[in-house]
């Protein structure tokens, strides 16, 4: 295993259902991502890219294979150990934002820190909301925001605990072109400024082309790998 690898996946399999109605979502994926790398995973709908991201994030478990994050095999972690590991190391950005509707923007952003029992780093918080242009929206509820604004809140929430890895599941999937470009620019800036590893799922080649490396998944297998630039 490379010392630079933050994420390493070995022979990953995921099967849904059993018997005759089995669906093989992942079929032996092996890949590694280096620290500070910005990787885009592309593939058609149902190719298994979201499943791969969920397993990397520890919110789903593999049927077979191993996932190492920062040298720790996460499939070995159970219960609260996995939860603690996940909240320290991983920030998650969902396609449909998944903001909590009963919390304001500020509360949504600070939620991971609250759950981790951490104090809010006010300077860092200010930096994030300034960078994401959310200063004016701190005390509003998610339903009062546009799609682009909601995605920016989701990004801020993923950043608040300063995780080493950010996993983004089609972060531009529900956004128009302008907002998509803004979100990608922002992720690149975060990657550059804070040195966080970013793994992003997309089916948009323009978005993928902004990444350092593109991984192509087809039918649960890694089909192709190339540098975007």
């Amino acid at each position: 295993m490379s010392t630079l690898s933050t994420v390493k996946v070995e022979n990953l399999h995921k099967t849904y259902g059993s018997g005759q109605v089995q669906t093989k979502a992942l079929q032996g994926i092996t890949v590694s991502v280096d620290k500070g790398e910005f990787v885009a995973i592309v593939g058609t709908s149902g190719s298994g890219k979201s499943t791969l991201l969920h397993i990397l994030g520890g919110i789903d478990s593999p049927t077979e294979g191993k996932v190492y994050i920062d040298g720790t095999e996460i499939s070995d972690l159970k219960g609260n150990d996995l939860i603690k590991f996940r909240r320290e190391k991983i920030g998650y950005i969902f396609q449909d934002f998944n903001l909590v509707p009963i919390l304001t923007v500020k509360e949504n952003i600070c939620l991971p820190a609250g759950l981790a029992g951490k104090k809010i780093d006010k300077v860092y918080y200010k930096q994030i909301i300034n960078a994401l242009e959310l200063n004016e929206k701190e005390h509003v509820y998610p339903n009062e925001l546009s799609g682009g604004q909601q995605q920016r809140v989701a990004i801020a929430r993923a950043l608040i605990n300063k995780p080493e890895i950010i996993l983004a599941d089609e972060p531009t999937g529900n956004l128009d072109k302008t907002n998509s470009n803004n979100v990608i620019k922002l992720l690149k800036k975060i990657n550059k400024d804070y040195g966080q590893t970013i793994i992003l799922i997309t089916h948009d080649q323009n978005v993928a082309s902004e990444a350092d490396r593109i991984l192509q998944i087809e039918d649960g297998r890694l089909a192709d790998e190339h540098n975007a630039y």
Partner: protein
Amino acid sequence: MSITHIEKTIANRRIRKNRTKSILRGLIISAAVMLFTAISIFCVESEIELSKLGTSSLADIAYVLLAFLIVVILTAGVSVKSIYEVLLVNDMIEFRRLKLIGATSDQLKHIVGRERRTIFWSYAVIGAALSVVISLFFPISKNIPAIILCAVASLVVIDIVVIGCTGKIVKRVMNVSISDDLANIQAPKKKRKSDVRGLTRNPVAFLGKRYLFSGGKRTILTLFSLTLSFMLSFVIFSVIASFDEDKLAKSEYKHDSDFIVALQGNHGNDDEWMKNSPFTPELEEKIRNINGVEDIIKFKCLDVVFENDKDTHTISSGDVNVSASSDDGVVPIIINEGAYWYQNGSLKFKEGDRIEAEVNDGKKVTLLVEGFVNSPYDLNIYYTSEENWGELTSLTCDQKWYIKADDKISGDSVKELKGLIEPKENLSISSLSEYTAQLKDVFAKVRVAIYIVCIIVCLFTLINMYDLTVNNMEKRKKDIGIYRALGMSDRQVSILNYIEIGFLIILSGIGGIVIGTPLGRAICKIMADTMRSEYLVYVFPLRFLIVYIVALILIVLIMRRYIRAYVTNVQIVENIYG
């Protein structure tokens, strides 16, 4: 427009898909119909019996049960509504899809309606049938047409309640728009400033509180239903517990007596029986000679007509402190100013007043008011001592003999005493120990009946709470997934789900006790005053409270199991993407 085959198929498939919830819904409906039918049968049959007997004791119970009916409707309604709500809200996406492929609002209404009817009639009929069987064991004369009528009426009433409770949700289904946002929790309408300090100090308590206050009307309705059902059971238990059977029995057995020998039937102050009274000196002597008999206290009554108002009044003999009557025929009396009819009558006297009166054998006497006593639980007004009785009349006016016995009176002596009285047609004998046992038996039966009703009402409350937990988990499935993805531990997920329900339980319990205690006291006082009884003294229903708390602990344990199973078995990704 009648329901089509495809609408029926979709409705039936939905019932099968949501099997657990359908069963829960059916059980609530069945229990509601059963309770409603049983109580209404009891009420109607007791009313029919009342009209024959002309007594009011059953009517009081019937009114209490009617109050229960309202609570049953409310709690059952809230339960059914909440289950429907979560089912339909979670299935909005399904209805949206149906609309997308061309289903009309009316067709969606048919599907939901068919689903409701299928579950209702499958379970409601069982509930009605069970209650009809139960009603056959009621200690009232059976009235078959009344039973059938009550069962049918209850089915109709509960069906209307279910339709009423689900009407708004069905409208939501009908009005579902294809482009509607999928979120099923509405954001709070009220603007508030972000509270990050609260969130970081205790994120679980913070979120629990937020959910509670974002619940709006539903939270208020659940709280109201929980408080009302708890309070009602609490008050009824306190009233039932407040009856002191020993005191009630002793209130009849005056002068600390153990036996009462009384005239059979209603003789009033009829001259004829006074002339041939069964209370003879020979009988008195024989009773006094029985081993263990300590004393006989005679209760006498005599009708007199006061000259100043020409009304008939009754003078009784009693253990009162009055002077002996004088030679000129003046009989000193004591007035019980606490007696209901003295307080509410027009005649008022003061010490030293002389009342000219005529006794029912025609003798003229002068009554001298020598003093007053205040005994509100006694209905008799005018008293004189037994020693003065000879001055009032030569007739034997004995109505009752109170017999005092020592503690060691043997069974043979009791048999001997009964043997003296029972053969006499116009006399009856009753004993304190038997009367107390009978009363205790009657009260035990009434208590069991009320306990059963209360337990069923509590059961509704508990189902409601369990249902609320399950619904919350379902409704907040996605939120829980987000929390778990963001680092909320399984324990925190469990606690989050306890907070809202815990708050509702504690608040409804406190509310029930705070309102129920003075209400119970007030009801006991009103009943004691109305019945002029001293055997009804408020008792805090500690036993009920313990049973209720035990039931709550049980439901919390069940909920814990459910939440744990949910957290263990459901992957975060399932939570979020469902």
